């Protein structure tokens, strides 16, 4: 086993242990504190009914959700960064999150029921709206950025423009909502990991089980596309076609992530980036640590957001932005 493989193995081990600790932490803290010993007891089938309810119906699904959304966002970001050949690409910056958010707010604004809020029936349809919003936005960006093939910088700038336009429409609609809905929509847009019920967790995980292995299968293509479309064509890759496939893949994952987690920006940016710094740019090596990092960061942010300013619950996405934006700016200053 050579050095880089050793390093990869170690990285994955260390991250897994950290992730496990973060999981325990997130299960423990909260309005109802449950100690690690009690968690263990309950997993073996003992414990009070109230604790079991908190643990199995609230904390556990929300923990799993954070793990899944973190993974989806990190891998989606990794793909976007490779195909745009820009380390600073991220679904949040490109406007994909805003597109999903707009779809959700349109749904809330035009389906106002008697209760006028994100009620139970809405909660089933909401993810679909978010997903199609993300998809439509990505199609729009791709179409507008296409000019005799892809150009990575044009793609990012078009994304920024679309993001600005969609935000303008979004805010208009938001202002027409009732104050309560406005708050709900705002919290959602900031990424509050709202879909904390087992049914969503199951749906999300079944999609990811399909999409993640396919991404790993495409790792080689990603490596080559990262060298630039001319090199890729020279090496026998039909680059525009592969671009399209991979964009669909990236959008599918960020769309799913946004649908279940809300607009979480920067996560797709920093997780792959840190992973690349540790284990190098090869996608076969880089994708697994990136996924672990994404989960870890999101889970910690979620735990911090829920407990820092208690009783106010800060959406996890906000915490992620506050922590990652400075890192992003640091990266920006270093890139040529």
């Amino acid at each position, binding site marked *: 086993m050579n050095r880089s493989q050793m390093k990869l193995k170690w990285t994955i081990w260390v991250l897994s242990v950290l992730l496990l600790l973060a999981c325990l932490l997130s299960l423990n803290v909260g309005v109802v504190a449950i100690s690690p010993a009690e968690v263990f007891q309950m997993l073996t089938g003992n414990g009070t009914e109230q604790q079991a309810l908190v643990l199995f119906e609230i904390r556990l699904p929300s923990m799993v959700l954070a793990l899944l959304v973190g993974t989806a966002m990190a891998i989606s970001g990794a793909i976007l960064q490779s195909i745009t050949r*820009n380390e*600073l690409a991220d679904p*949040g*910056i490109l406007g994909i999150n805003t597109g999903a958010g707009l779809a959700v707010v349109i749904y809330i604004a035009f389906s106002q029921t008697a209760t006028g809020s994100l009620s139970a029936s809405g909660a089933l349809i909401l993810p679909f709206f978010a997903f199609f919003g993300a998809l439509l936005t990505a199609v729009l960006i791709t179409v*507008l950025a296409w*000019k005799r093939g892809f*150009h990575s*910088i*044009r793609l*990012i*700038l*078009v994304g*920024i*423009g*679309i*993001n*600005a*336009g969609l*935000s*303008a*429409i979004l*805010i*208009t609609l*938001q*202002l027409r909502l009732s*104050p309560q809905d*406005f*708050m709900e929509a*705002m*919290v959602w847009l*900031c990424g509050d990991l709202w879909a904390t019920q087992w049914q969503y967790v199951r749906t999300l995980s079944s999609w990811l089980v399909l999409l993640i292995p396919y991404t790993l299968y495409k790792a080689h293509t990603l490596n080559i596309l990262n060298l630039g479309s001319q090199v890729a064509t020279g090496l026998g890759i039909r680059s525009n076609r592969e671009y399209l496939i991979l964009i669909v893949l990236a959008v599918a994952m960020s769309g799913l992530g946004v649908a279940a987690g809300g607009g979480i*920006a*920067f996560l797709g940016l920093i997780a792959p980036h840190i992973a690349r710094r540790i284990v190098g740019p090869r996608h076969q090596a880089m994708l697994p640590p990136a996924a672990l990092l994404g989960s870890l960061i999101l889970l910690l942010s979620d735990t911090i957001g829920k407990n820092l*300013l208690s009783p*106010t619950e*800060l959406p996890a*996405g*906000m*915490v992620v*932005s*506050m922590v990652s*934006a*400075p890192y*992003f*700016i640091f990266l*920006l*200053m*270093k*890139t*040529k």
Partner: protein
Amino acid sequence: MLRNHVQQTMGAAGRRARTGWILLVGIIGILLALAVSLVYGTKDLQLSTVWQALFAYDPDIKAHQIVQDIRFPRSLAAALIGAYLALSGAIMQALTRNPLAEPSLLGVSHGAAFALVVTIAFVPDISIVGATVSSMTGAGLAVLFVFVLASASNGNVTPVKLSLAGIATGMFLSSLTSSIALHFDVSKEMGFWYAGGLANMDWRAVKVLAVAGLFGILIVTALARALTLLHLGADVTKGLGIHVQAVKTLAVLAVLLLTGSSVAVSGAIGFVGLVVPHISRMLVGLNYRFSLPVSAVLGSLLLVLADVGARMINPPFETPVGVVTALIGVPFFLYLVRNEKGRTA
């Protein structure tokens, strides 16, 4: 490109005449737009009534009150803000030599919002002047931050880099803003502010704008020639014996005053500063002595019309004017991105 074509085919005298004509037509346009803006509203007034309200004010007539207290300050504020934003955009584009530089894309409004929410959260009963000063400071600090970032970073500051710096700064500040707003329960107030509105303009706002604008425009006037040279590149500027650092500092100060006061009274109104300077340069060329006045006039005209549009789209409700300008500006932005060869790369 049209811009180069204009510069090649016209002598200085021709450009001066052309600028004069454009300014004349533009000012007449503004006056007409102001008239429409005063007449049109939830309650349509006769032009003669408006005239009387302005020049023979009778406080007992309701229509006169509407004109004097609501519509006139609002229209004036729109005209001023439009001019200020266009000037700020032109200055930023010269300073950064960057076609996509624009106040709202550089995190300015987020800076102002952040300062404002902090102020509201900790001093709930703050006066309107206090709130204005605080959001002006916030806007100023955000611009300053993005500029410092741009000048301190490695390599060239490409358009994409500057835009990303602005976005990241904006996102960072807006998460802080939202957290504070959530914790202190002032979210919706902030939402209105973010959308950019001219609905609540009064004479105080116009006064703030007038004072800040006076100083800002004085600085801009003094800098016009230096800005043209800056746009051509720092090497040229040094060769001609201009103190680059002094010019830049003064220019940033002008941006702070102009954008800061606009953002403070009206919230985030985007894309005026992007679109207008480009159009002005296409019309009269790169020379800022000509393009700055044209930018100011066209900016005014655009925002007054956008404000009328904002009232007409969905009456009796008002669409935030920032949305109208974004709907005009985003396609323009995309056009620039698709057509700038080499410079954006």
